């Protein structure tokens, strides 16, 4: 185990070296004069009022000036006041006479009662620490500063996630803080093999980005690929993991997500255990998971918590739901304008009667209704919650009642659009639901131009496109294509927990595929069942 750590540290050091080499060679060092240093601090931060500079005096004869600099709101108030300011002011060591050169040492070793303390001497690093919530202690006459870890401040507490809701399973959701998020994972996977690597991305924002994987399960090439792509990023800001997602995707021209994101720690843990890599971005509760496969977007963590038969049934339902949400309206358009022969006569007569007064062609009707629905959805997302109920009333009345009664749209169309809408909400992953929405319009257009022929062409293009996608080198449609019979057990089916023998082949490391021991299948107790038992007595539970 130790060797793992070593390796990791070495790797990190190597990376750090590389980074150093990469950056500008002129490094600004801290001056020894306190006032000069303060000037620089003020000048660099534009004398912002939230940068607090607190000057104290320590030692006697000569008095040494010490300054504590921190950013209001980023620090943990009690630790700064209690463990920093108070201890410096009241510490008996400091009231004695100290050599100015030794002052910093004394403060570090005897005074500051905080965990993380380090020294820095260049401004670049100093500001990075300062602006991420550390407190900096300058001592007059010394050209090194002390960085005390006092990160804290107001943050959202851990709450139930608002996406990927489940009935059963952990109620914890990620927060905006990387530290908290990583700790949550540590709490789930208590293994030293859970490795984390951090980097700062964004020339201005300097956002903390960490990648996490389980050494030994993950495929080395995938980790390397993720790191390579992250290093390539040269952008001023990273405000959300979506920035990263769009900058490291395999293919840009596709409506389908090739990275998964989630708010649930248990989902990340499950993915890590299959050999995937998680990317944490500070400032967002959405953690990226790579590589992502098509089938994954139809899976929910709850599938693994429920029994396999139920999970399999739900997964099939989701596939049907996805198909409906993609082709629903297109099917209606194609069937009613091109292929009336395939509708049963009675149904056709009913639909025809409804359409009798509708002035628009079916395609236009479908597009109109779909767009109206999209408007409604978008509006209800962005509006203040108080207006929401008004929205739904207006929507229901205008679209559901008035439009039908006026004869502008047919009731059948309303039914189709509503079913599609419900279907698109029932897809477990939001990102694939958005893709379905986009693709749906393409299908409607194709159906409107040339009926089923157009739809089948669109379908073929869709399949070819999906097959051509890769996520971090892994074919997007695997394990369906290329087919992997072992992997099929966790696609639209979910094999029973006792039969999950292997991790996904294309994602996990090849030498560590085994997931569970032999004979995991639970069996009824020996004394039960139709068998000739040598025992004369049962186990006393006979009814």
């Amino acid at each position, binding site marked *: 185990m130790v060797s793992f750590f070593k390796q990791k540290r070495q790797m990190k050091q190597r990376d750090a070296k590389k980074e150093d080499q990469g950056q500008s060679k002129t490094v600004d060092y801290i001056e020894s004069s306190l006032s000069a240093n303060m000037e620089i601090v003020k000048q660099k931060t534009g004398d912002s009022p939230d940068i607090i500079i607190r000057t104290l005096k320590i030692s006697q004869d000569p008095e040494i000036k010490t300054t504590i600099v921190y950013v209001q709101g980023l620090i943990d108030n009690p630790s700064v006041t209690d463990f920093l300011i108070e201890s410096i002011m009241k510490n008996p060591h400091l009231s004695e006479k100290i050599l100015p050169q030794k002052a910093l040492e004394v403060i570090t070793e005897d005074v500051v009662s905080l965990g993380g303390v380090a020294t820095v001497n260049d401004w670049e690093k100093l500001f990075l620490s300062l602006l991420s919530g550390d407190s900096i202690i300058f001592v007059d006459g010394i050209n090194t500063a002390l960085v005390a870890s006092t990160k804290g401040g107001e943050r959202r507490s851990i709450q139930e996630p608002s996406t990927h809701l489940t009935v059963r399973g952990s109620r914890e959701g990620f927060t905006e803080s990387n530290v908290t998020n990583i700790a949550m994972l540590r709490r789930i996977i208590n293994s030293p093999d859970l490795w984390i690597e951090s980097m700062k991305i964004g020339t201005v924002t300097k956002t903390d980005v960490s990648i996490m994987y389980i050494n030994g399960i993950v495929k080395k090439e995938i980790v390397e690929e993720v790191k390579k792509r992250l290093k390539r990023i040269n952008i001023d800001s990273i405000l959300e993991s979506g920035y990263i997602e769009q900058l490291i995707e395999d293919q840009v021209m596709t409506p389908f997500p090739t990275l998964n994101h989630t708010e649930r720690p248990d989902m990340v843990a499950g993915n890590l255990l299959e050999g995937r890599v998680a990317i944490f971005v500070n400032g967002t509760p959405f953690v990226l998971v790579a590589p992502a496969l098509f089938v994954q977007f139809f899976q929910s963590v709850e599938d693994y918590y429920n029994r396999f038969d139920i999970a399999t049934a739900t997964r099939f339902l989701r596939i049907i739901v996805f198909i409906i949400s993609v082709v629903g309206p297109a099917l209606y358009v194609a069937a009613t304008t*091109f292929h009336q022969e395939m509708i049963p006569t009675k149904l056709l007569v*009913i639909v025809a*009667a*409804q*359409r009798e007064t509708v002035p628009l062609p079916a395609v236009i009707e479908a597009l109109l209704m779909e767009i109206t629905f999209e408007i409604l959805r978008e509006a209800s997302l962005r509006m203040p919650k108080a207006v929401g109920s008004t929205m739904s009333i207006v929507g229901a009345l205008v679209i559901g009642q008035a439009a039908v009664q006026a004869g502008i749209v047919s009731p059948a169309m309303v039914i189709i659009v509503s079913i599609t809408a419900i279907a698109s909400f029932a897809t477990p992953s939001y990102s694939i639901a958005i893709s379905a929405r986009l693709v749906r319009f393409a299908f409607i257009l194709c159906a409107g131009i040339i009926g089923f022929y157009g739809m089948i062409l669109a379908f073929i293009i869709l399949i070819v496109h999906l097959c051509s996608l890769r996520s971090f080198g892994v074919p997007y449609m695997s394990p369906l294509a290329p087919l992997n019979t072992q992997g099929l057990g966790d696609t639209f089916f979910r094999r029973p927990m006792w039969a999950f023998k292997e991790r996904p082949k294309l994602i996990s490391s090849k030498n560590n595929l085994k997931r569970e021991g032999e004979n995991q299948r639970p069996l009824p107790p020996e004394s039960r069942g139709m068998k000739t038992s040598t025992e004369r007595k049962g186990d006393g539970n006979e009814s």
Partner: protein
Amino acid sequence: MNRKRLVLLLMLMGTTFTSGCWDKTELNEMAIVSAVGIDKNEAGRLVGTFQIINPVNVAGSLQGGGGTNPSISIYRATGDNVLELDSNASTKISRDMYFAHANLVVIGEDVAKEMGINSIFDAFERSPEFRATTRIVIARGVKAKDLVETLTAIDKVSAEKVIKTIESTEKQQGGSITINLQEVIKNLVSSGKEPLISGFTVRGNTNKESKIENTQTSNMAANPNAVGIGVFKDGKLIDWLDGNQAKGTMWVLDRIVNTNVNIDWEGKKDAVTYQVLRQKTNVKPKMKNGKPKMYITVRAEGDIREVNAPIDLASPHGSIDIEKKLAKDIKKDMEDAIKLAQKNKSDIFGFGELIHETHPAYWKKHEKDWDDVTFPKLEAEVQVEVFIRRTGIRNKPYLLDIKKGDQ
């Protein structure tokens, strides 16, 4: 490269949008034809009657209201062939006639008898729009137009009514035969089988059938009825099978589903009613002295439904007696049907096909003169086995007790 792609895309979009949507038909631009009737006028030209659904009236009545307006409209056209009928009719209709839902083709008796049906069906078969499963009936005793025009009560569209009636008649009585376009054509083409097509007529006041009042009384003045099965030879209608002849034919054809069979008992007519639940007819040709002979075996299972004679059903003897009598009656019906077909020189049973399948060499020799020479002389042996499985929820008929009391 990007500009090229853009140009290509624009070209593609241009071609699709400027040329429009070729085969698009909105539902409110089409007239859904539900039935086609074909008659002949005095001049010998075809007269087509097209029954078109008025969706609003049909759907309205399905939803509970409606019923005040007729659910169908009728258009007529004259022409020399079927397609001409179609194009001539379109001068009278504001919409395109759409035939994919035409479930019924009615052929006038005079057309079937005099012109034959051979020349009618090609247009129906060739068109990708027309269904292969369209049912065919012959208007017996009336014009095809009378049948197509009739307004009916429960099934708003009379085409539906006709189809359902034939199906239920076939099932309950064995007096009709459901046959679709594809089967008719197959039989017309085959040299070893001739088609059978059900007859249909309008009973009652034939002037009222197209009036809305017809559907507004509980006792309809004009009501379409299934009557008999038409026998064809060389594409022409030559005879009608009614009652027991039709039943016998259906027995031979193995198309009986759950027919009631009535037998006389000790001089009392139709005293016992037996309902067939399962049956299987096997027809096997065997060569004897270089000549084929048909062996037809029937095995029927069923229940006793009505006994108006004092028979003790509780004892197996009673049942066996009835079984024997039933077998005899069915056998007679079948033999009569075969004899009639031989008299008509029309192989409606497909014996020829069977011989083709089993004795191809013999068939090759006799294919040409099958209908006229070989078939009429064909020997057939019928064996019928009837089993009574259950007798309903009573064992002995109460008549037996009444008789006893009288004594």
